[in-house]
């Protein structure tokens, strides 16, 4: 759905989405990296299970919540993608360290 601007040529950053290898660019937020990789929905809401995707991209709407390196409910648009990050789409309520 989304395409990068033609002049965007930055360092490649490898990471995983739900365990699958993926790649984005240095400077991407996690939410942008998901969108660039064609991820349509990044979570299901905790009560009704409705699908959600990154929306405002500026930290306000909380629709881009994902699990990053095992920690749930991270705002994907507010986290800079790092090499090797494990990003997981979040199905409902976040985890708790049991």
């Amino acid at each position, binding site marked *: 759905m989304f395409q990068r601007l033609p002049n965007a040529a930055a360092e490649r950053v490898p990471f995983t989405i739900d365990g699958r290898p993926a790649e984005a660019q240095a400077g991407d937020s996690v939410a942008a990296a998901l969108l660039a990789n064609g991820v349509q929905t990044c979570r299901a809401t905790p*009560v009704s299970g409705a699908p959600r995707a990154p929306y405002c991209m500026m930290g306000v709407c909380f629709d881009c919540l994902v699990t990053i390196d095992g*920690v749930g*409910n991270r705002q994907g648009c507010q986290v800079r993608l790092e090499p090797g990050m494990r990003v997981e789409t979040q199905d*409902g*309520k*976040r985890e*708790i*360290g*049991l």
Partner: protein
Amino acid sequence: MSDLSGSEYDVAVVGGGLVGSATAWGLARLGQKVALLDEGDVAVRPSRGNFALVWVQGKGLGMPEYAGWTKRSADGWTEFAALLRDQTGIDVAYDRPGGFFPALSEAELEARAQQLQRLHNQPGVVRYDYEILDRAALRQELPFIGPDVAGASYCPLDGHCNSLRLLRALHAGLQHSGVAYRPNRRVERIEARDGGFRLATGGGEVGAGKVVLAAGHDNIRLAPMVGLDAPVRPERGHIIVTEKTIPFLRHPVGFIRQTDEGGVMIGDSFEDAGLDVGVRVGVVSTIAERAVRIFPLLGPLNVVRTWAAQRVMSRDGFPIYEQSATAPGAFLATCHSGVTLAANHALALAPHIAAGRLPQEFDVFSARRFHVPEAA
């Protein structure tokens, strides 16, 4: 919305919070024609800010009848929740898995044990099971307690619900049973006249054979209009709610509980702050820190909201139920446990009000109990 002028009802209930709503709901169930007069959104609204426990253990030290009244309501809650669900389709998420009250030191645990023992040693007190669990025993039940937790008391009668849905279910039920709910009708004056009452509100006058004052903090102002006295004061409590997490805690643990929808509520501050419902960061930090000592796994959770609400406290902390001696159709009902006691207000108190007389067993709850030491 229809004007109230000239309206005649069997009962006018003043106050649309949990006490007034549950009582009005119970009255309507008995076929009474009921008007529920509520303030607007500017009202102090403890019923929108409470912690949602249906809690028995520890209540009634100093008034054994209150222990019995509380247990009776908790015992009635399953039926009450079922009646609400059948009538409105709203599930108020009542669950009664038993509740723990944690202690953060051996001294605290010992004090808790003594408190519960003194409560149960009172003459005529209702008996119920409870246990004091040391750390090892508590870990069997809640393996994720922190290193500072010395133990807990446990009572199988304790439970919790979704109290916002409770208020909504009550109001849906009121509408369903034809109760005239009238918001923005602050009662300015009540006059006993011709064997009934005339209530002057900002939106017109209403006539009723009986009046129930269930207006929380505003009962202080209203009670003297019908020869009653409501010596209550606000006691502020803060509540934190975290983001929703997978279910890990079915039991309410005193001031920590996980809601049916997954958020963790943390509460239990007690402050004298007038009617101010502002949130104080210092209080919030203190209750959060204590909760993390009890359950360290709460530490990484994000807080999504904090708020404060005002308990309606009598001087001894027990409810006041009273019928006016000078205007016998007027009743007063006030307590700080509007959730726990909702089943009683609907199913046990309302029938007496419908019949027009509080029986003798309610004498102990009269505000006259506060007058004796003053006269001595």
